[in-house]
């Protein structure tokens, strides 16, 4: 019961973060800043989702697989963000700068 509540809290918080990331994607002014908004969904949103699902499953092989998914996202998402940002910079896209 308690585990169920915890798992739902994680899942709902995760979905909320996904939506907030989407809102940020629309509100921010240029490519580089949008990358930061997408960063929240990359990290905390995915982690909360997988934690919530893992709590639903309990101790089983499937929750270890979820852990593996988390590890792969954790290792590959910065590489993807970096190569996107680097390609944009080399392509000559100028970032909008604040004061």
């Amino acid at each position, binding site marked *: 019961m308690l585990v169920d509540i915890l798992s739902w809290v994680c899942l709902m918080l995760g979905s909320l973060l996904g939506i907030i*990331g989407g809102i940020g994607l629309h509100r921010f002014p240029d490519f*580089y800043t949008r990358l930061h908004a997408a960063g929240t969904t990359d990290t905390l949103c995915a982690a909360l989702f997988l934690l919530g699902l893992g709590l639903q499953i309990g101790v089983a092989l499937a929750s270890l697989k979820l852990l593996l998914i988390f590890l792969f996202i954790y290792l590959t998402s*910065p590489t993807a963000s970096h190569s996107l940002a680097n390609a944009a910079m080399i392509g000559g896209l100028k970032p909008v700068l604040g004061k």
Partner: protein
Amino acid sequence: MRIVSTATLIFIFWFVLSGHTSNLLIILGIASTGLTVYLSRRMNIIDAESYPFHLSFSLFRYNLYLFKEILIANIDVIKRILSPSVAISPQVTELPASQHSDLSKVIYANSITLTPGTVTLELSGGKLKVHALSHEGIEDLEQGNMAKQVPEDKDHIS
């Protein structure tokens, strides 16, 4: 030592993904683990950079620290997204990557990208070009707390 631990990890990986416990399939799993390790050895891809076995413990501790930083940074970015005026002032700055080995520099650059609000645009020589969502993000990096936490690969200084 590095080979033995690679083989163990690959076998555990195989077992977690397959979940088979019958003798025949376990033997086949061991055989494919052996083949994979043999091929990776022949290709020379198991080395101190691709598998920093000697840093296992300090990397584990560093990741706990990084999780905490990611949590804090996430909350900060969420606040900025939801604030009525979109409270951002994007910055691009060059920062020194004071780590001594290539591996530690890459870990540092990746950690910066992984924390929302800062993205590494370029890593060349000892310089990092960082795009940040706000002044505060840059200031935090300039204080160098994260840079100090990055595990140093003392055996492979470049």
